[in-house]
C-alpha cells in the first residue's frame, strides 16, 4: 500500500505543479508561451491519468481480503500422525523483498547517507571545496565508516591536495572559499597555512 500511496502523492504533486506551469504561462506572449503550453497541457493530462490510475489501484488494494492469497496444501505428518493442511497466507507488500537486507537497516543506512549528502552540500557552501572536502571526508570516514585515524586523515589530505594541485596550481582556477570566509572578508581558511609553504617551495 505504501508504494501506491506514494504514487498517489507524487501524481497529485505533479498535477498541481503542471497546473501551475500552464497557469503561469497564460500572461506570457505567445512566442514564450508556445512551448510551455504545447508540452504542459499534454503532460498535465498524462499526470491526471497517472493520478487516476494510482487512486484506482489504491481502491482495489483496500479490499484487503481479496489481496490475501490463501494457499492450503495437503501435508502428511512425518511421524505418521493425522494428515492435514498447511495454510500459507501471501500478503502483497507493495514492494519486492530486498536481497537479504534487513529493511530497518536499509532505512537506517539510507537516512544516514542522505544526512551525510546534505552535510557535504552544506560543508562546501560554508567552507568551500578544499577545506570542506578535507573536513567532511575526515568526518565521514571516522564517524560513519569507522575507519582508522591514519586512513581518514591521509584520505582527507589526499582529496585536499587533489583540489590544490589540480585546480589551483595546474588549472589556475581558484575554488570558492565558502560563505563564512567570504562574509568575513577572508581568503579560504587553508590559504593562511598553505600559501607561505607554497611560496617557499615555489621560490616566490
Amino acid at each position: 500500500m505504501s508504494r501506491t500511496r506514494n504514487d498517489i502523492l507524487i501524481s497529485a504533486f505533479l498535477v498541481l505543479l503542471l497546473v501551475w506551469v500552464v497557469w503561469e504561462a497564460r500572461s506570457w506572449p505567445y512566442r514564450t508561451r508556445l512551448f510551455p503550453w504545447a508540452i504542459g497541457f499534454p503532460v498535465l493530462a498524462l499526470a491526471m491519468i497517472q493520478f487516476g490510475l494510482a487512486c484506482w489501484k489504491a481502491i482495489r488494494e483496500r479490499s484487503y481480503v481479496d489481496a490475501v492469497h490463501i494457499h492450503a496444501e495437503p501435508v502428511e505428518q512425518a511421524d505418521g500422525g493425522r494428515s492435514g493442511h498447511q495454510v500459507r497466507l501471501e500478503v502483497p507488500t507493495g514492494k519486492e523483498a530486498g536481497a537479504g537486507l534487513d529493511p530497518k537497516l536499509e532505512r537506517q543506512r539510507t537516512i544516514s547517507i542522505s544526512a551525510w549528502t546534505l552535510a557535504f552540500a552544506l560543508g562546501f557552501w560554508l567552507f568551500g571545496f578544499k577545506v570542506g572536502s578535507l573536513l567532511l571526508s575526515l568526518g565521514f570516514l571516522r564517524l560513519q565508516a569507522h575507519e582508522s585515524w591514519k586512513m581518514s586523515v591521509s584520505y582527507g589530505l589526499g582529496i585536499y591536495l587533489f583540489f590544490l594541485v589540480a585546480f589551483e596550481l595546474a588549472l589556475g582556477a581558484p575554488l570558492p572559499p565558502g560563505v563564512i570566509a567570504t562574509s568575513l572578508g577572508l581568503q579560504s581558511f587553508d590559504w593562511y597555512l598553505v600559501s607561505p609553504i607554497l611560496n617557499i617551495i615555489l621560490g616566490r
Partner: protein
Amino acid sequence: MLEAFVSGLLDVFAYPTFLLMLLGIAVGFVVGILPGIGSPGAMAIMLPFIFAMKPVEAFAFLLGMYAVTATTGDITSILFGVPGEVVSAATIIDGHPMAKHGEAGRALGAALMSSLVGAIIGAFTLAAAIPVVTPLVLSFKSPEFLALGLLGIAFLAALSGENKLKGVLAGGMGLVLAMVGLDPQENIERYTFGLVGLWEGVGLVAALVGLFAIPEIVDLWVKGTSIAETQVGKLGGVWQGIKDTFIHLGITFRCSMIGTFFGLVPGVSGALSQWVSYGHAVQSASDKSRFGKGDVRGVLGPGAANNSGVGAAMIPTIAFGVPGSATTAILLGAFMIQGLQPGPKILTEKLSLIFSMVWLIVVSNIITVIMCLIFLNQLAKITLIRGSLLIPALLTLVFLGGYADTNSYLALAITLAFGVVGLVMVQQGWPRPPMVLGLVLGPLIERNLFISYEVYRFGFLLRPIVLVILVIAIAVLFLPNIQEWTARRNALREEAVVANEE
C-alpha cells in the same frame, strides 16, 4: 570522407587527447569493476571535467570510459558472479561456473577478446553508417527533428516496461524542467522564482549528477562493503580463452552483429542484446550439454554483443539526437555542453570528430584488453575496495560537478534537489533516463517547435515523415500493451469456449 577518416585517427593520438583517453579508460576500469557505480552515474560525475576540453578531447575522455565499462564489468561477473554492469549479467551463466571449475583465466580471456572483436565490429558499423544516414538527415527539416525528439523520449519511456506512463510522464517533466530560465525568443523569465541563478536554466550537469550519481552513492552505502570478501587466486589460462574466441569465431561474429543491431535500435538496451546473444550461442551449438555449467561459448556471445552495441548506439544519437540508453542520453548532454548539435551540422561540419569517435572506441578497447591481460590479477584486487572509501570522493565530485556548471552555490541546492528526485524515482519505480532526455532535448525541441509553427503552423503535423515518426512513437509506446491485451482477450475467449464445451 577518407581524409576525415584518417584525420580522425591522427586526432586520437594527438596530445592531450590520447592521455585523456587513457585517463577515461582508467576511470572506466574502476567503474566497470565496482558494482554500484554504473556507467551513467560515472559519466554524469565526469561531465564537469569536459568544460575546458576541446570536443575531441572531451569525447576521448568520455568514450574511453564508456567503451571499457562493459568489458571490465565482465570481470566481476566471471570471478564473483556479481555483474559490474547491467550489460554483463549474462556472462555470469557460464563465466562464473568456469571460474568455479578453475577456468577463470580462460573465461576472462574469452570475454576480453570477444569484447574487442565486438567493439571493432560496432565501431566500423558506425563508420559505415555515416555515408548512409547523412543524406537522410540532410533531407530532414525542423518538423522532422521535432518529431524525432519526441520519438527519442518515447523510446526511452518504452524501456520502463510496465510503467510506460510513468516513463512518458518523466520525459514530459524533463521537458518542463528544460523550460526553466530565460525564454530563447523573448528573454522573458520562465519559472525562475526571481532567481538570477536560474536564468540559464537548471544546469544540466547539476541535474544529471543529482539524478544519477546521488542515488548510486546511496545504494553503494546501503548495500555495504566490497564485493569480494576473499582474495582471488592467480588467474591462468587466459591465452586459451583468447584462442577460444577465434576457434568459435562464427559465434563471436554473429553475436557481435546481434549486439550491433540492438545498438542501432534506440530503446532496445544492451541488457537485452546480451541475453539474445546468449540464446543464439546456445541454439547454434550442436552440443548444448555444457551450457550453464561453464561453456566458453556462453561467455563469447554476451561478451561480443555488449561491446558491439557501443559503436552502433552512437549512430541514432549522433545522426538524429535519439539516444537509446541512459548513458547515450548523458553523452548527448556532453554534445550540448560542447556546443555540438546532433543532426546535419555535425555530420557535415564535424565529420572528422565522428571518425575520431569510431577510432576512440576501437583504440580504447584494444588498450583495455591489453591492460586487462597484463594486469588481470591486480585489477581483480579493485573489488576489495570498500564502498565507504569511495563515498567521500564521489560526493565531492558530485557537488563540484554541479557547482562547476554554473559557478554558483545555487547549483549545490539544485544538485541536492535532483538527488532527492532521483532517489524518489528509484524507490517508486519511476524511470530516470526519459527525464534526462527531456531535459537535454528540451531546448532543441522548443526551437524546432517554434520554427515549425512559424513556418507551417499546424500543417507541420501532416508532413509525411513527421506522421510516420509519430506513428512509430505511438506504436513503440502502445503496441506491446495492445498485443498483451489481445493475447489476454484471446485466452479468455478460448477459456470460455472450453467451458461451454464442457
